């Protein structure tokens, strides 16, 4: 970073002044204009610099946001104390393994019976390549990352009402959709329907591009033949020797493709967050939280349920009880506080902050999410269907099936993601007892993998995020209107307290939101500490 001067004032002190007087948004805008801020939102770990001797910070929550703040502020020289509701680090960074017991709200208890090496990530399971913050900490903590496949061309798209309920391969659906659209557009171009919009010179290029993109033949048609089969796959795979006559597969008609609604399945992997490359921690997403927890050691007090947060001109005190046994309230105090408790829970905890911040905390509804892990005694999707990782989409209420993206070709067992829901469908599945959710998931899976699914099922676990005792939902859901009115107030430093977490970010539900939120919060807090 250059030390360029703006008038008689250094750029840094100008930014500090803007930040202090006008708040973070003004500072961010100023930073952008001055060429500091990066669009990614993460420009590396905070460089906090010198710390006032003896300065202390109380961090509420040992999820990703809380532990990023704890590690950086400890390393900068702060005296750090962390309170965590659960008996483990990580928060929603969490994997369930055989031997784990999980009790959801309502008292429904599940004993996970997976084999060693098997797991399910009930919460986050993907690390996009541009989520630099969470990737930085995974690397720093020595967590091994392996590829996560969002898109598998050989996985299925399934609609119970189409093709006799027989699934199509993802590549067939995508090739047919692209092919027909390309043919249609080529036809329009040749019929001069686009002459108003595309020059004759550009039309020639467009036709060439459409042929390549849509796998059209020499007549610009998407029909059974070498070009389309090269994209959607042949009827029988080519081979060597005498038995290798080429066979071409028959594309579905455009009307069939459109009415199947299978095209809905081909878009997800195009979105920025789902583009290759994506990673997952080896052995489960929870590996990151565990590594953070190990690095922070006894800075974290576990099983601490915060029941009151109070600040005055001297510092901040959190009152807490044992989350398992209750008992006498205890207190933890520090000069400053970074609170990463989900807004769903925080809105219920007495805390003396401004009316504006309270209104912001109360303005964040929590979304529904639900995942089910199903252990199968045989990796039939690999052995029989040649599906190695990725996702199958279905119109059934389980929405999709995720295949394990590790231990490919192993002769052993595997855990499928049998259901992955958000929103409307997740509320409905959450309203059922866990064993019923699993029973439903098996029925849906059997339709996609008939004769294989139920026969190989051994055990499962279902996590409905609205029944998770420490989050009461999956993640913070901002509407545009709520952001306009409340977001800056949620981010603001309120006396000695600042909030952080995925809910205090523009990447809700993503761990990167937690990292970037914590980075921003502690940077602003530190500036306040040093100017106090």
């Amino acid at each position, binding site marked *: 970073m250059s030390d360029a001067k703006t008038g008689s004032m250094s750029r840094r002190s100008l930014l500090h002044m803007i930040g202090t007087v006008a708040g973070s948004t003004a500072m961010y805008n100023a930073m952008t204009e001055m060429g500091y801020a990066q669009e990614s939102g993460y420009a590396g770990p905070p460089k906090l610099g010198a710390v006032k001797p003896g300065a202390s910070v109380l961090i509420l929550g040992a999820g990703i946001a809380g532990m990023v703040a704890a590690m950086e502020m400890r390393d900068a020289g702060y005296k750090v104390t962390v309170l965590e509701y659960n008996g483990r680090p990580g928060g929603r960074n969490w994997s369930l393994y055989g031997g784990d017991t999980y009790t959801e709200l309502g008292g429904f208890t599940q004993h996970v019976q997976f084999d060693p090496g098997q797991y399910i990530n009930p919460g986050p399971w993907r690390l996009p390549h541009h989520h630099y913050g969470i990737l930085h900490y995974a690397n720093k903590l020595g967590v091994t990352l392996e590829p996560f496949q969002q898109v598998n061309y050989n996985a299925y798209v399934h609609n119970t009402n189409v093709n006799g309920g027989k699934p199509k391969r993802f590549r067939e659906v995508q090739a047919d959709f692209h092919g027909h659209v390309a043919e249609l557009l080529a036809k329009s171009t040749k019929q001069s329907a686009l002459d108003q919009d595309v020059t004759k010179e550009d039309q020639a290029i467009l036709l060439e591009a459409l042929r390549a993109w849509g796998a059209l033949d020499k007549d610009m048609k998407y029909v059974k033949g070498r070009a389309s089969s090269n994209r959607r796959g042949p009827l029988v795979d080519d081979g060597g020797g005498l038995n290798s006559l080429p066979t071409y597969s028959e594309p579905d008609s455009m009307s069939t493709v459109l009415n199947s609604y299978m095209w809905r399945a081909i878009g997800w992997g195009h979105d920025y*967050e789902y583009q290759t490359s994506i990673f997952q921690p080896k052995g489960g997403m929870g590996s990151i939280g565990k590594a953070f927890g190990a690095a922070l050691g006894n800075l974290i007090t576990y099983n601490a349920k915060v029941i009151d947060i109070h600040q005055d001109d001297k510092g901040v005190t959190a009152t807490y009880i044992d989350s398992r046994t209750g008992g006498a309230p205890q207190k933890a105090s520090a000069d400053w506080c970074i609170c990463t408790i989900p807004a769903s829970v925080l809105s219920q905890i007495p805390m003396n902050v401004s009316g504006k911040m309270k209104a912001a905390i109360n303005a964040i509804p929590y979304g529904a999410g639900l995942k089910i892990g199903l252990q199968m005694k045989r990796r039939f999707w690999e052995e029989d269907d040649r599906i190695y990782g990725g996702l199958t989409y279905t119109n059934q209420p389980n929405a999709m099936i995720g295949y394990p993206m590790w231990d490919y070709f192993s002769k052993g067992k595997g855990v499928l993601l049998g259901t992955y829901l958000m929103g409307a469908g997740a509320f409905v599945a959450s309203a059922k007892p866990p064993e019923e959710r699993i029973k439903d998931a098996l029925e849906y899976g059997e339709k996609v993998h008939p004769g294989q699914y139920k026969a190989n099922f051994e055990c499962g676990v279902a996590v409905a995020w609205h029944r998770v005792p420490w989050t009461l939902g999956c993640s913070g859901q*901002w509407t545009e209107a709520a952001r306009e009115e409340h977001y800056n107030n949620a981010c603001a430093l309120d006396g000695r307290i600042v909030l952080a977490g995925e809910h205090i970010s523009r990447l809700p539900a993503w761990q990167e939101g937690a990292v970037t939120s914590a980075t921003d919060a502690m940077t602003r807090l530190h500036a306040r500490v040093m100017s106090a």
Partner: protein
Amino acid sequence: MKFAFAAVVAVVGLCISTAAMADGAQDMGAGAMNRGGPYDFKGGQAIYTNVCQGCHMPDAKGAVGAGMYPALAKNEKLETAGYPVAVITHGQKAMPSFGTLLNDQQVADVVNYIRTNFGNKYKDKVKPEDVKAQR
């Protein structure tokens, strides 16, 4: 020169425009062939058991963890029928809005169900037009 590739962009856009985790995501986004809603459950009891009891629990007594879900059983706040109508339609604090998932009749039905069950004995009924007025 304007290069209106709009036809293709519009068609392809149908399937790539919704980020699954975007602001206010109430559906599964681009990957979902099953959107899960709006709900077609009929009658207050069906709506309660298929949706509401996920949080408020089958016995409507709520639950307690790091935070809590309020009990609807014997809940005096239900005395004013407009209150549950508003909460269901618009959401409150962490509770999401169900205004787009339930129609006026469904909101009225589930409010009437809750207000006459679980130890609640309120006689006045909510009508769909009462719900409509609160939207």
